[in-house]
């Protein structure tokens, strides 16, 4: 059985047919070829699959594609192209906050929504926000550094 599915992905409207068992992450990767959404654990633990669903971060592996009908999805590709992440991306690069890069899309989405919802998070709050994102390479410290420096730069930019 396949079902019709209409939704908006990175600003473009999409009409497809999917099997109900298809996760949103598999739909984005396999059907739309948006492979920046990564799959690690496929059970909500690692955070590699985060996307924005109607503006909020959710796990693409835990949402069925059919459940996103009528919704607005933003993936790491859409966010990166919009320029919304440019300073975070630069800081991740400068601080060595990625090595293999597998966790990076999820880290950026978590960091992006933290900065959207919390005006000036401290390091403890950054760590709490990242508690659902696994990184097997960096040891996290550099990721926290990159996010902290972006917060400082945004505050300086706003004050200037």
């Amino acid at each position: 059985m396949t079902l019709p599915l209409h939704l908006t992905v990175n600003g473009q409207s999409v009409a497809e047919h999917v099997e109900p068992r298809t996760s949103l992450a598999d739909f984005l990767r396999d059907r739309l070829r948006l492979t920046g959404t990564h799959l690690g654990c496929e059970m909500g633990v690692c955070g590699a699959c985060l996307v924005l669903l109607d503006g909020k971060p959710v796990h693409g592996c835990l949402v069925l594609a059919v459940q996103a009908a009528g919704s607005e999805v933003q993936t790491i590709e859409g966010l990166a192209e919009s320029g919304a992440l440019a300073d975070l991306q630069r800081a991740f690069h400068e601080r060595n906050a990625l090595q293999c890069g597998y966790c990076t899309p999820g880290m950026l989405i978590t960091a992006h929504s933290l900065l959207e919802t919390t005006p000036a998070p401290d390091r403890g709050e950054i760590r709490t926000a990242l508690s659902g994102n696994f990184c097997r390479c960096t040891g996290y410290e550099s990721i926290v550094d990159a996010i902290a420096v972006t917060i400082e730069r945004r505050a300086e930019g706003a004050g200037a």
Partner: protein
Amino acid sequence: MKPPPFDYQLADSVSQALDLYARSEGDALWLAGGHSIVPSLALRLQAPSLLIDISRLPELMGITLTEEGLRIGALATHAQILSDPLVRTHAPLLSEAAAHVAHPAIRNRATFGGNLVLADPASEFPAVVRCLDAVFDIVGPEGARQVGVEDFFLDLFTTALEPGEILRSVLIPPAPASLRCGFDELARRHGDFAMVGAAVWLVVAEGVTTEARICFHSVGPTPMRATLVEEALRGRPLAADEINAAQAVLGNDLDPADDVTLPGATRLHLARVLLGRILHRLAGQTAMETAA
């Protein structure tokens, strides 16, 4: 890690959902936030023919203050429980506990109702609603019924809900004057399921505890009330000696089993430490302001 095939129907109303269930001959599951079902389908622990999506049912939405108390729709997300101003004012134990439930992104989708119906013994909300003496508003083919929390959590992952019934909302009775309450847990990492957690609900008038409800999670098959501890506190000042005495009797209330993660004795020790922490904190606190 991919689920077997199943059919999917989005329900527009409770009556349509109940109809769909009746036609499935019991081979269907309700889908709310999906954050427990989707992984369990992927792990092939469950294999229903049909998922009936109840996540857009208006009858299950909303958080409202009524004369009977605070009514929380089953579809309220964990994130809403954490940030809703009515919950913060009228059921602060729930907002406090929500900060410990899973990680931020999970909280955006997972629902309060789904969490309670799942009845995971390690979950925070079941322990909190037991402290708050909640009433479950359940609807099924025979109509609606109300079940008090003392009759709701029956066993490991087992509640009074019959197959085919829907949890519509949960009622939290009004908080009494002079209420002091606190929630805390011990987990290996923030957002992980707790090794032990506790919700404490006390009425303290002129320094003396007049009513007490204390409920632990992760220490038994259901949220566990510590009735002997409650008794030890009632009618006595909330002060250091009484807190020590209450900690001492906890071993008569709880008897956690050994499991692969922790010996039972360690879990009991942690529960005792946690109880002391929360009670000392509440002893130093003045009564919360209960809005009329």
